[in-house]
Every structure is written in structure tokens, then in C-alpha cells.
């Protein structure tokens, strides 16, 4: 060491020589466990945290080995780690476990050899930091994750089971409920044809009413199946051209009802990442409703366009038809709820329930706006929006 003392122009005192007492004070006031053992594993020094942890006094430990103090397994592990530090000649880091403070604790330990003037290691120093709390937290996180995964698997299995059940139910509805209806319908027809002379006009009329109800029930079964299908078919998003789909649907409506004159305007370039088969169903129902409820207007118009509301694209189908009273709008999307009598406008009331289900499955929203005699507007989005976003 340089013995010359330089004048320090900044006035800061140069570092003083640190003595043994001061070093001992330093290692005694850390929360880490610090110890030094010789090449044979005999204790040369321990700090205060070591004394506290194992309730031992340093004067009673010096000269002893870990095998005198700890169970064999623990001592063997410590010794092996000491020897590794000796062999490698550089600081090594490992996790160690030991019983202390009434429980098994985990430490992250750095061990490094002390080298004598001739280059031989003669002792090993260890600094062990308690990471029990961290380990425990990690273990908890691991267990939580494992539990979460398990629960996700359980819920997925439950969902799959209920979808399968729904599937089986829908299948049996489509088969088993229609068959007796066919018999009812068929035999009513046979009665009308083969027993016409023994049935008066009143009797014939009753038979026709049976048939009309059978037809209605058949339609409802089909609609119910449509609703279940809209729920259980897998959703495959792809680039979907809503303008083109809407024009196809309108062409179908015109074909089915060529006597009507309806002015339809579909905006160009309406596109979305959505399931085209399901969106077709949505448009069939919305445009079909618009078509139906403008039946009593000579100047029937239907428009479809889109606007952006807070960065979310909102599509709108508007008509100038019969409209409805907004007081009942909460019933609008419920299955088999109708706001018009069957005599006014036919239908089973399932269409908007299907529409809402499909929109919801896309993560979107749908709202209706109307008043009696002033047409209706249905606005919908097809993408998940931020939590407080509401369609306008």
C-alpha cells in the first residue's frame, strides 16, 4: 500500500483502515447467516444471525463440524456444497434447506473459498439469505396456477358436456317432436279427403284449424332449433363482407315477394372480422323483419350502413315500417316474445333472439330504437369493446 498521504483538495477524508472489530460489527448486523469453516469443515467463525437462528453461542461452535450440529442429511448437504466451492475455486451459489425458527427454511447461499499465499484454499465462507417467504409465495403461485388450470379444465369439460346435452336435446326435438305433428297433420288431411261427406262445414273448419296450429308448432320447433344451432355451432371469424351478404339477403327477399316494391340502400364496404354464416342469419332476420314490418307502406325504405362510435364500428339496419313501442323493448330479444299480433304480422318471435345470441357470441352489442308508426333502427357491433362501452 502507498504510504504517501496526498492532500485532499475536496476536504473529503480518505477511507480509514478497517479493523477486525468493525468487520465483526458489520457481519453481526446483517440479516444474512454468515459463517467460515476450514478445509475439514470445522467452524472458524459465525455471525450473530447464525447464533440466533440455531440458538448456539459462537464460543461453543468453533472447532465443531456441521455433523456435530445438524442431522446427518443436512450436514452432508452443507459439506458437499463447501467441497464444491473448494473444488471450483470461485464463488458458487445454491439453495440450502435447514430447520430453524421452528420450521424448514430455505436459503440462497453464496460460498467462496479463501486462498492462502501459496494459492491453496484453506477455508470456505458462506453467506446465506433467507428466501423462505419468497419460496412460499412462489409455491402458492404455482399451486394457484395449477388449480386455475384444473378449474379451467373442469369448466371446459362441464361446458362441453352441456353443449353435448343441448345438442342431443335439439337432435331429439328435431326428430321426435316433428313425427307426431306429421301424423296429426296427415290424419287431419285424410279425414278431410276421405270423410268429407260425413263432416259438415264446421267440422271441416275445425280440422283446418288443427292443421294451422300444427303448422305453427312445426315452425316453432324449426325456429327453436335455429336458436339452438346459433348457440352451439362453432364461431369461425374471417373477413366478412356485410354489404355483399346484405344484398344477397335482399335479393332473396325480393324473389320470395316479387309484388313488393321496397327501396333498399346498402352502404358499400361494410366489413368485419366475423362468422359469415352466423352474420348471414343476423341479416336474414334484421332485413327480413324490416321487409315484413314495412308491408303496409307504399314508400317502404330499408337502409343498412355503419358509423363509428368511440372507435368501435356500429352497423345499423333502419326501416320506415310499423315500429314498436319502446316500453316493450326489453322483451324484444326474448325467445317467442312478440310485439305484434299474429294477425298483424306473422312470425314466431324467435328471430331477434337468434340475432342477439349471435351478436353476443361475437362479443358485440345490439340495441333497438323505434316508436309506433315511425319505423325501427337496429344497431349492432361485432367486436368486444372496453368494459364501459355502450352502443349508441
Amino acid at each position, binding site marked *: 500500500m502507498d504510504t504517501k498521504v496526498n492532500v485532499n483538495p475536496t476536504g473529503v477524508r480518505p477511507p480509514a483502515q478497517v479493523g477486525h472489530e468493525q468487520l465483526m460489527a458489520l457481519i453481526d448486523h446483517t440479516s444474512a447467516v454468515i459463517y467460515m469453516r476450514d478445509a475439514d469443515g470445522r467452524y472458524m467463525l459465525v455471525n450473530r444471525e447464525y447464533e440466533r437462528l440455531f440458538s448456539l453461542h459462537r464460543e461453543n461452535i468453533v472447532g465443531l463440524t456441521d455433523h456435530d450440529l445438524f442431522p446427518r442429511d443436512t450436514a452432508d448437504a452443507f459439506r458437499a456444497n463447501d467441497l464444491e466451492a473448494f473444488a471450483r475455486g470461485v464463488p458458487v451459489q445454491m439453495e440450502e434447506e435447514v430447520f430453524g425458527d421452528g420450521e424448514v427454511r430455505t436459503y440462497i447461499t453464496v460460498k467462496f473459498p479463501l486462498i492462502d499465499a501459496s494459492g491453496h484454499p484453506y477455508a470456505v465462507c458462506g453467506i446465506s439469505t433467507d428466501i423462505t417467504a419468497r419460496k412460499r409465495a412462489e409455491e402458492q403461485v404455482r399451486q394457484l396456477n395449477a388449480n386455475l388450470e384444473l378449474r379451467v379444465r373442469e369448466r371446459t369439460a362441464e361446458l362441453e358436456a352441456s353443449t353435448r346435452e343441448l345438442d342431443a336435446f*335439439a*337432435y331429439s326435438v*328435431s*326428430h321426435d317432436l*316433428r*313425427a307426431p*305433428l*306429421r*301424423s296429426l*297433420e*296427415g*290424419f*287431419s*288431411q*285424410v279425414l278431410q279427403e276421405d270423410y268429407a261427406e260425413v263432416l259438415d262445414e264446421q267440422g271441416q273448419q275445425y280440422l283446418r284449424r288443427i*292443421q294451422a296450429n*300444427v*303448422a305453427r308448432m*312445426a315452425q316453432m320447433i324449426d325456429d327453436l*332449433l335455429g336458436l339452438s344451432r346459433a348457440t352451439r355451432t362453432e364461431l369461425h371469424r374471417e373477413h366478412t363482407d356485410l354489404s355483399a351478404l346484405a344484398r344477397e339477403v335482399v335479393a332473396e327477399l325480393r324473389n320470395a315477394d316479387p309484388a313488393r316494391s321496397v327501396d333498399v340502400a346498402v352502404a358499400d364496404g361494410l366489413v368485419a372480422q366475423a362468422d359469415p354464416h352466423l352474420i348471414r342469419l343476423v341479416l336474414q332476420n334484421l332485413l327480413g323483419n324490416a321487409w315484413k314490418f314495412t308491408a303496409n307502406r307504399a314508400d317502404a325504405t330499408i337502409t343498412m350502413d355503419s358509423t363509428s362510435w368511440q372507435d368501435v364500428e356500429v352497423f345499423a339496419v333502419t326501416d320506415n315500417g310499423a315500429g314498436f313501442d319502446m316500453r316493450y323493448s326489453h322483451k324484444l330479444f326474448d325467445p317467442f316474445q312478440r310485439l305484434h299480433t299474429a294477425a298483424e304480422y306473422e312470425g314466431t318471435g324467435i328471430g331477434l333472439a337468434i340475432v342477439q345470441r349471435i351478436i353476443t357470441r361475437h362479443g358485440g352489442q345490439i340495441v333497438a330504437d323505434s316508436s309506433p308508426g315511425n319505423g325501427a333502427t337496429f344497431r349492432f357491433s361485432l367486436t368486444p369493446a372496453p368494459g364501459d362501452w355502450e352502443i349508441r
Partner: protein
Amino acid sequence: MSDGPILLVEDNPDDVMFTVRAFAKNHIKNEVIVASDGEEALRLLLPEDDSPPLKPALILLDVNLPKVNGLEVLRTIRGDERTMGLPVVVLTTSNEERDIVASYRLGANSYVRKPVVFDEFLAAAKVLGVYWLLVNEPLPPGLGR
């Protein structure tokens, strides 16, 4: 004109009656032979004893059948060279996609959903009769091998 019999594979006696009636109303005179389950249908078409096999001009096949269901019957018919060329119309209550897909995959010639309204059924039976018994040219015997 194919004047062979029509094999109706159908377990519901009401449906059997309506089908027979619909053909009669449409002046389709072919004999209608009824198999009330899939096993019986296969026994008629592919007898395991020495009895002569039925050679129908048309098979009307229901899907939901006791014992051997319609799709299995179809698979067996298409897998045997004696019956592979027979026209098979799947006639069922279901319009489930999977039944339609499975039927065509197994080689059904046509898939018809039984209408609830009898008049519509009548119309369907007429079209089926005209097409499969009058218009369609069946596979000549022995050429399917």
C-alpha cells in the same frame, strides 16, 4: 320406366301409411315393400340364405331406425357390389347438418326432409316418383362390378 318395387325402410306406421297414400294419390303404381327396421331391410336386399334378393327400383330410407339405423344400412348397401348401384333417397324428419353430411358421404343419391304438411309431402312424393322411376336411368344389372 322402372316398374320394380319401392323399398320403404320406415319404422313409423303412420309414416308408412302416408307414404303409401302419397304414392297412390300420385298414381305411382309400383309395389311398396316395407321394412320396419334396418336389419329387415338388409335381410331383404342381401339375404344370407338362398332366398332371392329384392331388387327395388328405389329405396326410401329413414335415418332413425331400430336395431340397424339408416346410415348403417346405407353404408352396407354401398359397400356391396350387388346393391351399390341402387338409388337411395334418405327420407327423414331430421334436417341436422350431420345427418345430411353423413348421408351424402355414405353415398345417398338424395336427401329429403319429410314435410309436416301432408300436401307438401304429396308434392315431394310426386317429384321423387317421377324423377327416380321415370326420368332416371338406373345402373344396368351386372355393370357395377
